C-alpha cells in the first residue's frame, strides 16, 4: 500500500470510528443500574440555562456520557486487565492475593462498642457477649499479596479460625466467611460460654453452589477460582418471622437466591431489620445484634435457645435496648466485623 493511500485510509477510518461510537451510543438504551459495577449510573441531565452558566450541566453531561458509553462493561474489563498485566495487586480497593483469594479492608458499619456498652448497662455484664469477626486478610495472612498485612484482634475466635486456616473458612471471591468459618467461630464462642457446641458430623451437609462469585469479584470482575458454597444444617425445627411479619418469607434458608448473583442471601434472606426465630423446643431468649457475617452462623445457635431475635442495627432504627427489654431477652450476642485496615510488612 502506498504512503498516500495509507494516510487517506487512516484518516477516513478514524472519522468512521468516532461516528460509529456515537451511533452506538444513540442506539444503545440508557441503563439505570449496572449489575457489573453494582451502582446506579448517571442519567441524562436536565437542560437549564442556570446549569449551563454555572458549569454543572457540562459536568453532568460528561458523567452521563461516560456512564452510558456503549459496551461500558467491556471497556472497564479491558482496563482492569491492563492494570493486572502491569502488576497491580490492588484494584478499586480489592487486594489480589495468592491462590485466588481476594481481600478488602473491613470498615465499621455500626458502632458495635457503643451497642455493647448500652446492652451491658441494661442487661448486666455477664449476659452480653461479643464476637469480633476478623477480616479474611487477618486470618489468611499468607494468602495476601506481598508486603501487605491486616490487623487481627487476637481473641479466642481469631485463634480458633487461625488454627483452621488451611480449610476453606473464607470465600475467595466474597468478603464473607463461609459457613465452615462461621462454625469455627461459633465453636470457639460456645466453648467460651460454657456450652456444648454442635459437632460438624451432627449436621446435614450439602453443597449449595459450585460457581459462587461474590462481592469482591463484583467489584473487579476478576477471579482465578470460583467458590463452593456449602451448608451445614443443624437438625432443629423452627419457625422464622421476618420484619415482625411484614415479609411473607419464612425459613432460615432461601433457596431462590442461589441462582442469582447475590447467592449469600441464601442465609436468612440477606439483611433484614428484625428476624425472629422460634424453636420447637429449647429455653432462653437470645438477641443477636449483628451484621451480615452472622447470617450463616445463626443456624448453629438455634440448637441452644428457645427463641432468637436477630437485629441488624443498620435496618432497625429504634432504641434497641428498650425494645429488647420489653421482650424478655435473657442473653445478648453482638456480632460484627472487626475494623481492619491494610498495613504494610515491617522490615
Amino acid at each position, binding site marked *: 500500500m502506498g504512503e*498516500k493511500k*495509507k*494516510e*487517506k485510509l*487512516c*484518516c477516513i477510518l*478514524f*472519522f468512521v470510528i*468516532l*461516528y460509529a*461510537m*456515537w451511533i452506538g*451510543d444513540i442506539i444503545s438504551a440508557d441503563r439505570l443500574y449496572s449489575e457489573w*459495577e453494582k451502582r446506579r449510573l*448517571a442519567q441524562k441531565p436536565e437542560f437549564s440555562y442556570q446549569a*449551563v*452558566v*454555572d*458549569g454543572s450541566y*457540562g459536568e453532568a*453531561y*460528561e*458523567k452521563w*456520557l*461516560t*456512564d452510558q*458509553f456503549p459496551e*461500558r462493561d467491556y*471497556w*472497564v474489563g*479491558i*482496563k*482492569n486487565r*491492563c492494570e493486572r498485566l*502491569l*502488576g*497491580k*495487586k*490492588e484494584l*478499586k480497593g480489592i487486594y489480589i492475593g495468592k491462590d485466588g483469594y481476594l481481600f478488602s479492608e473491613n470498615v465499621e458499619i455500626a458502632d458495635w462498642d457503643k451497642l455493647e456498652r448500652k446492652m451491658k448497662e441494661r442487661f448486666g455484664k455477664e449476659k452480653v457477649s461479643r464476637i469480633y469477626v476478623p477480616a479474611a486478610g487477618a486470618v489468611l495472612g499468607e494468602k495476601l*499479596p*506481598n*508486603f*501487605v*498485612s491486616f490487623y487481627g484482634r487476637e481473641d479466642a475466635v481469631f485463634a480458633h479460625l487461625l488454627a483452621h486456616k488451611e480449610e476453606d473458612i473464607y470465600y475467595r471471591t466474597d468478603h464473607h466467611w463461609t459457613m465452615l468459618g462461621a462454625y469455627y467461630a461459633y465453636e470457639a464462642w460456645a466453648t467460651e460460654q460454657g456450652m456444648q457446641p454442635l459437632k460438624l458430623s451432627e449436621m446435614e451437609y450439602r453443597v449449595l453452589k459450585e460457581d459462587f462469585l461474590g462481592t469482591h469479584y463484583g467489584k473487579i470482575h476478576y477471579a482465578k477460582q470460583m467458590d463452593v458454597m456449602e451448608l451445614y444444617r443443624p437438625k432443629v425445627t423452627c419457625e422464622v418471622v421476618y420484619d415482625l411479619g411484614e415479609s411473607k418469607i419464612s425459613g432460615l434458608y432461601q433457596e431462590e437466591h442461589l441462582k442469582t448473583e447475590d447467592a449469600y442471601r441464601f442465609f436468612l434472606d440477606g439483611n433484614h431489620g428484625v428476624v425472629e426465630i422460634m424453636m420447637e423446643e429449647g429455653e432462653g431468649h437470645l438477641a443477636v445484634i449483628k451484621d451480615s457475617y452472622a447470617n450463616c452462623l445463626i443456624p448453629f445457635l438455634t440448637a441452644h435457645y428457645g427463641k432468637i431475635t436477630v437485629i441488624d442495627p443498620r435496618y432497625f432504627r429504634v432504641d434497641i435496648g428498650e425494645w429488647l427489654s420489653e421482650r424478655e431477652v435473657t442473653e445478648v450476642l453482638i456480632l460484627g466485623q472487626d475494623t481492619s485496615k491494610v498495613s*504494610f*510488612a*515491617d*522490615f
Partner: protein
Amino acid sequence: MVFSSLIFICRFFPVFLTIYLLVSARYRNLVLFLGSLVFYAWGEPVYIGLMLFSTFLDYGNGRLLGYAKRTGRMHLAKGVLLESVVVNLSLLCLFKYAGVFLLPVGISFYTFQTMSYTIDVYRGETPVQTDFIAFGAYVSMFPQLIAGPIVKYKDVATELTHRTLSFSNGYYGIERFVIGLGKKVLLANQIGLLWEEIQKIPACEMTTLSAWLGSLAFALQLYFDFSGYSDMAIGMARMLGFHLKENFDYPYRARSITEFWRRWHISLGQWFREYVYIPLGGNRKGLLLQFRNLLIVWALTGIWHGKGMNFLVWGLYFGVLLILEKWFLLRWLQRIPAVWGHLYAMVAVIAGMTVFAIDRLGDGLVWIGMLFGSTGRWYDGRALWLLSGYGLLLLLGVIGSVGVGKKFCRYPLVWMMVFFLSMAYLVDASYNPFLYFRF
C-alpha cells in the same frame, strides 16, 4: 473542556471537524473561532467574556499601532504598546495572583499570545491583522487555548489566512493526537495515582525509597501530562492546517540544566527569551548584567506557573543553576563522561520538581531532605508494595520519556492500539477518584 475526555473526543471534535472540512476555505476561521468559543464556554462559561475582551482589546491595539506607525506617530505607538502590555499583565495579575477569583482557564497562555502580537506589530516583525475573525481564531484557537504551546502570532500569521488541508496533514495530526492522548491517559494519569498515594503517607512513615518513588512519579506525570497535551494540540492544529512549533524535545535526556530548558516547555522559554531576556540586553552587556537578566527571567518564569512562594523559589533555583552553568559548570560537564552530566541534570531537575509539586515551600525542602536519607530508613513494606504495583509502569514511563520506542509507536497498528486502550481508561475514569488535570 479538556482533550482527554469522552465529550471532547466523541462529540465536540468530530462535529467540529466535520463542519470545518465541509465549509469553504474562507469560512474556516469563523468556524474555528466559534468552535473555540463553544469549547471554552463548555467548562467555564463565565470567563468567556474575559477572553473576548482580551481579543477585542489587542485586535484594536494592533489596528491602532498600524495607524500610528503608518502616520509616523511613534509616541502613540509606544503608548499603545505600553497600554497593551499593562492591561494584559494587569488581567493576569488580577485573576491569577490576587486570589479573589477562580483562575480562568488558559489565561496565562492567551494573554502571552496577544502580547506577542502587539509587541511584534510594534517592532514591525509582522503585519497588522485587519480581519477580526482571523485574529479571534488565533487567540482562541482551541488546540492550544488551555495549555499551550504558546504560539507567537508571527509563527502562524501566514497560515491564519493561507493554509492547506490534506490527508497527509490529517494522518500526521491523528497519529500525534493519539500519542498525546496515550501519554496523558495511560501514563500521566496512572503514574499520578502513585504520586497521590505517596503524598498520603504521614511524614513519620516516609523512607528514602518512598520519597524517590514519589518524586520520580511526579516528574514523569508532569512530563507526560504536559507534553501529552502539547502533542494533542500540535496534532489537532495540524489536522486544521497549522504547523505549530514543538514544545518538548525529550527533556529527560538532558545533560545539563541549560539543555533541559532547551527541551522543556520550549515555547515558554522562547517567549521569555524574545520578549524579556533579549530586550534586557541578553548576554551582550557583560557577565554581571547577563546574570541579572537571567535572574529576572527565571523569577518571572517561576511566577508565571502560579502564585505560590514555591514557584518563585523554583524559578530562581533554576536561574541560579543556569548562572552557575554559564559561569563554569557547563565547561566542567563537557570534560567529564556524559553519564555524570545526566546524573547531575536528573537530580537537579527532580529536586526542583519537588519544590514545584509541593505547595508549601517548607514541606518541599523537607521532602528534598528525605530524598537524601533524612528519614534514616531506606525502605519499608509500603514502599516495596508501591514499587511492586507501579514498578512496571514507572519503567515504561522512564523508557518512553527518553524517547526509546518512538519509532515503534509510529506504526499505525500500535497507535491505534494506544487509542483503543485510552478509550478504555477514559470510560472507566468515572470509577477513578484521582483523575485530575494540572494544566
